[in-house]
């Protein structure tokens, strides 16, 4: 079956920016046609079976290479009451992501190829279950976005012994990380980086000195002092950022710094890049949208790790995004139920959901004139793909993973409409501009906004 997306502005940074039609065949991009030369285009199509083509009018929308979220938690296996691979991938599709990378801190931990293979096969199984109830053209629709698992750096995330990266890579693992339980031993981290380098696997580092952060529940500063909450200082993050950049220099490996939250880390990464060290970095929308003030009434939905920081840090994160120090935007989607969140602040779990609010919050950077739209798509699509070594350009022969955005649509964040199983967001009621209209994964519609 063939699909033709008509009327959209196509924006693929460094490749295309203009009004084109995209023809999709068998899950892949068949051709991209300039409608101004429609005759040529028509003749191109007519060489194929022209009867079975479905035209989708997306006039007024912008189509971009599918967004990729390098940092999510899907909670399966182990904590299915918070999220499952199915609900997580549906939420991802709704958020415009054609692919997401779940972190290894599941239960059991994704530290062996069996777990990796389970996640991959579960995702494929879900994608193959067509949603037929709500749509009549069921063949056109598939439920979910793609899943690229991230494996653990060490067995059980215990920071001691390396996992079988090669075996896990064969099962579908795309990167390794210590997210959730950071590797404290620098020697272990060094060996992991050296070993992963030989296999061409990116290392994603959750930078946190757990001794400096111990007992902390929010940013160390005046708000924490007022509330009587124990603080987590910036340096619990930045010292490990510095360590890992130094290890990247030593080993020649590349390091990707997860969820950067503070000024000191941005400075360290900027300096590392200047020295020519292979370091990339990510931040999440909450770090450029909110500050520690969001915690001020013990709101457990504003509790995450690393914590929301000060306005000064927020500005440094924005500056890092603007000057390219921070390469990509991720969500760190961390679903939790009321069991973990409707409790005393210091006992509440860290983390917020993010898949369904990320694009809208990030679009604000464009609306505020801080980033160009093209630049934003770089940070949410092209750069994450290149870090994973994936070519997601909109060009003939590539998988048809496309996000179609209604950049002028206003909407308001309502957790009740989330497809994620969890509702733990600090953004309830936020008015945002820029909404996902459609997400196409392997040529099938994984999500379409209800009109």
């Amino acid at each position, binding site marked *: 079956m063939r699909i033709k997306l008509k009327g959209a502005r196509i924006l693929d940074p460094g490749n295309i920016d203009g009004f084109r039609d995209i023809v999709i065949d068998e899950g892949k991009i068949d051709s991209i046609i300039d409608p101004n030369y429609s005759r040529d285009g028509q003749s191109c199509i007519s060489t194929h079976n022209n009867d079975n083509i479905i035209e989708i009018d997306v006039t007024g929308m912008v189509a971009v290479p599918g967004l990729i979220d390098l940092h999510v938690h899907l909670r399966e296996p182990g904590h299915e009451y918070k999220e499952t691979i199915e609900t997580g991938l549906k939420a991802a599709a709704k958020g415009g992501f054609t692919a997401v990378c779940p972190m290894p801190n599941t239960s059991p931990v994704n530290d062996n190829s069996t777990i990796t293979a389970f996640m991959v096969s579960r995702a494929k199984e879900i994608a193959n279950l067509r949603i037929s109830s709500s749509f009549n053209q069921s063949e056109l629709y598939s439920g979910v976005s793609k899943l690229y698992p991230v494996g653990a750096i060490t067995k059980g995330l215990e920071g001691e012994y390396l996992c079988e990266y090669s075996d896990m890579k064969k099962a579908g693992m795309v990167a390794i990380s210590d997210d959730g339980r950071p590797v404290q031993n620098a020697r272990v981290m060094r060996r992991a980086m050296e070993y992963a380098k030989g296999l061409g696997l990116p290392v994603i580092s959750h930078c946190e000195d757990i001794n400096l952060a111990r007992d902390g529940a929010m940013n160390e500063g005046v708000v924490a*002092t*007022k509330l009587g909450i124990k*603080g987590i200082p910036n340096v619990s993050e930045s010292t490990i950022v510095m360590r890992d950049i130094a290890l990247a220099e030593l080993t020649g490996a590349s390091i990707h710094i997860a969820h950067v939250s503070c000024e000191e880390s941005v400075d360290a990464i900027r300096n590392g890049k200047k020295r020519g060290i292979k370091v990339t970095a990510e931040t999440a929308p909450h770090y450029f949208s909110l500050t520690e003030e969001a915690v001020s009434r013990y709101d457990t939905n504003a509790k995450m790790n690393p914590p929301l920081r000060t306005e000064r840090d927020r500005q440094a994160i924005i500056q890092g995004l603007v000057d390219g120090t921070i390469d990509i935007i991720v969500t760190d989607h961390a679903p939790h139920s009321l069991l973990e969140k409707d409790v005393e*602040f210091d006992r509440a779990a860290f983390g917020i959901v993010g898949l369904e609010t990320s694009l809208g919050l990030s679009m604000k950077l464009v609306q505020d004139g801080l980033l160009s739209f093209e630049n934003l798509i770089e940070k949410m699509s092209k750069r994450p793909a290149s870090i994973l070594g994936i070519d997601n350009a909109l060009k003939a022969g590539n998988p048809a993973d496309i996000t179609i955005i209604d950049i002028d649509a206003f909407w308001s964040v309502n957790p009740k409409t989330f497809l994620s199983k969890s509702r733990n967001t600090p953004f309830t009621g936020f008015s945002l501009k820029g909404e996902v209209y459609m997400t196409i994964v392997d040529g099938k519609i994984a999500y379409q906004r209800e009109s």
Partner: protein
Amino acid sequence: MRFEHKDLLDIESLSVKDINMILDTAEGMKEISNRPIKKVPTLRGKTIVLFFQEPSTRTKLSFDIAAKRLSADTISISSGSSSIVKGETLIDTAKNLESMNPDIIVIRHPSSGAAELISRRVKASVVNAGDGLHAHPTQALLDMMTVREKKGKIEGLNISIIGDIAHSRVARSNIEGFTKMGAAVTVSAPSTMIPKGVEKLGCEVASDIESCIENADVVMMLRIQKERQEAILFPTEREYSMLFGLNIHRLKGAKRDVLVMHPGPMNRGVEINSDVADGEHSVILEQVTNGVALRMAVFYLVAGGMKNAD
């Protein structure tokens, strides 16, 4: 004039007017405790739950006596005996308490914000008897009551607070309360015990006890918790005492009519020497006496009582 708050959660949410109303009412209550029959019928038929999730002798007893002198019925739940040890969540416990229709819930809890969390879920008035490191409003109010009684005013006084400010809800509530009432508060401790940004609460930070005490009208010493040694806040009690312990020599830097206070329980020989604790400037036991009157006033006001009504 009516007290306009359902709950007493912290000092921050009180106005100067509120604080004066509480202190005035407490002064009026004080005399009841000196009667041969120490009981008035004011809160007869009211139920007050004392829900203490942290060890406490003095504070709990003080609340209990205050309630009984107003003829309220009190029920006490402590951490060992409550369902919390059976895994029930705080909110579930609070909702269960609520189902038995208490009028006032007094809560002490190790988590900052716990009193506020409960207050949002129950119709009963919630009185915070100490939540984590956050607030201990009745302690600060009884301290202000004691100072006002002795000095005739609070405004313009120099208040020195010495000890583990970072881990003290008493310090936080007193800094907020005394600065709100127009006093100048200076704190001092080893830097490990000074929380980041504390000056934003309106106090000054002195690096040593001598400069902190200089010209003080009130010196308030905080309890040093021995378990804090594990958190690497100070090397030994001996060294702490040498640097920040209050003794008769150090007190000479203060004003001649200085008041020495301590929220208790004291570590004699650590943060305070007996020559000061039992000396002529000490009002430590009067703080305890005033605590009962102050808590009677709080019960009376949150239960809807009017100032100066009888």
